[in-house]
């Protein structure tokens, strides 16, 4: 199910803006989406405004274990580098042709995760970036123009964010910044647009479920 502009259900933006997403992979997925989609950025900005109003309304009665002079001393005594900023991305520069959003590049640099492409199917390659303890996978899909991913369902939910190019699910086109949320039990028929290669960031919770026994056997080899 998708909404206008191919954004997610508002509960995703609330969890992201409130800082309550379940995993780092979800943080990375949402931060990448917000970076690429104006609509998503607007929703998060509105919610963060609310977060600011609530921070401002927090009653701070308990005495602090430090003073402002402690902070100013630390500020003066240390080099001008930011403690809480993301590490500079001096790490292996990601391949520019992949169009990876900064949030994803930062994650790869921070965790030392390489992008290693493997065979997924005819005209398709995948790079698994992270596997969770409950079967979740954060991965990149790179597909050639016109490739079709035949009729399939999902055992768990899946978020697919377009980074480059576009794909079609039925009559709906998904472009960079757009994200599709697939729910268990909903069938999909994906076709990569003819105009160019398509790269997507996906966060998958269960295995894909293909109808065809041949494709099911195929899954054994591809690990999806």
């Amino acid at each position, binding site marked *: 199910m998708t909404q206008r502009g191919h954004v997610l259900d508002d509960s995703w933006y*609330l*969890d992201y803006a*409130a800082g309550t997403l*379940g995993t780092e992979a979800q943080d990375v997925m949402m931060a990448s989406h917000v970076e690429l989609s104006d609509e998503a950025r607007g929703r998060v900005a509105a919610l963060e405004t*609310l977060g*600011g109003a*609530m921070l401002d309304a927090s009653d701070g009665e308990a005495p602090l*274990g430090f003073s402002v002079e402690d*902070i100013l001393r630390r*500020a003066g005594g240390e080099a001008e580098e930011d403690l809480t900023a993301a590490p500079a991305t001096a790490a292996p520069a990601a391949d520019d042709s992949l169009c990876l959003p900064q949030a994803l590049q930062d994650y790869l640099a921070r965790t030392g995760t390489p992008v290693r492409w493997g065979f997924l199917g005819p005209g398709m390659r995948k790079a698994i970036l992270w596997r969770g303890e409950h079967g979740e996978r954060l991965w990149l899909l790179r597909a050639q123009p016109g490739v079709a991913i035949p009729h399939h369902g999902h055992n768990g939910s899946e978020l697919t964010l377009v980074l480059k190019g576009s794909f079609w699910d039925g009559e709906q086109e998904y472009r960079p910044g757009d994200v599709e949320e697939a729910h268990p039990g909903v069938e999909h028929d994906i076709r990569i647009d003819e105009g160019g290669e398509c790269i997507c960031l996906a966060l998958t919770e269960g295995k894909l479920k293909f109808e065809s026994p041949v494709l099911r056997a195929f899954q054994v080899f591809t690990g999806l």
Partner: protein
Amino acid sequence: MTQDTDRRRSISDAARLAGLLEQVGRKRDAQAFRALFDHFAPRIRSFLMKRRVSSALADDLTQDVMLAIWRRASSFDAAKASAATWIYTIARNAHIDHYRKAVRARKIDEHDPHFQPPDQPLPDDLYERAEAGQSVTGALSGLPDDQRLVLELAFTEGLSHSEIAERLDLPLGTVKSRVRLAMNKMRQGLGEWK
């Protein structure tokens, strides 16, 4: 006091705080920073405590956040966000970063019940608390109680929408639709809070 005076006061207060933050950014003004500290440090600490951070850790993280404010103040843009919003995102990120690091280092399970909300006040108490907070957050004041409560639990207690469903003993779909309704309303009336 009427809600209108309340709102006017908080808007002029917001302008003062934004001005202080800009002074820190432009001139490294320690005096302006002290005023910001007096306003925000206790609030940041209290915000973290409500998210079930220990008081020692809340002190540490609050210091990190205040230091980050000092260092990054020049990137603050009053046209884009209020001082409170800008500082909120720094505090939120410092908390998440700390939590994610702990997960990676100790290999703690993010779904572990130990990390679920411990205290579970009855829904009635929660509605009363939401009522008490009404005057201070103008952006929320036009919302029905049930929608406002969901947003308050998310931001003040740091509960995800599925944790909120558990806490209020509501179906997930009900919480999602309250979030959707609340956000539709806020989109119409949030302009002046930016």
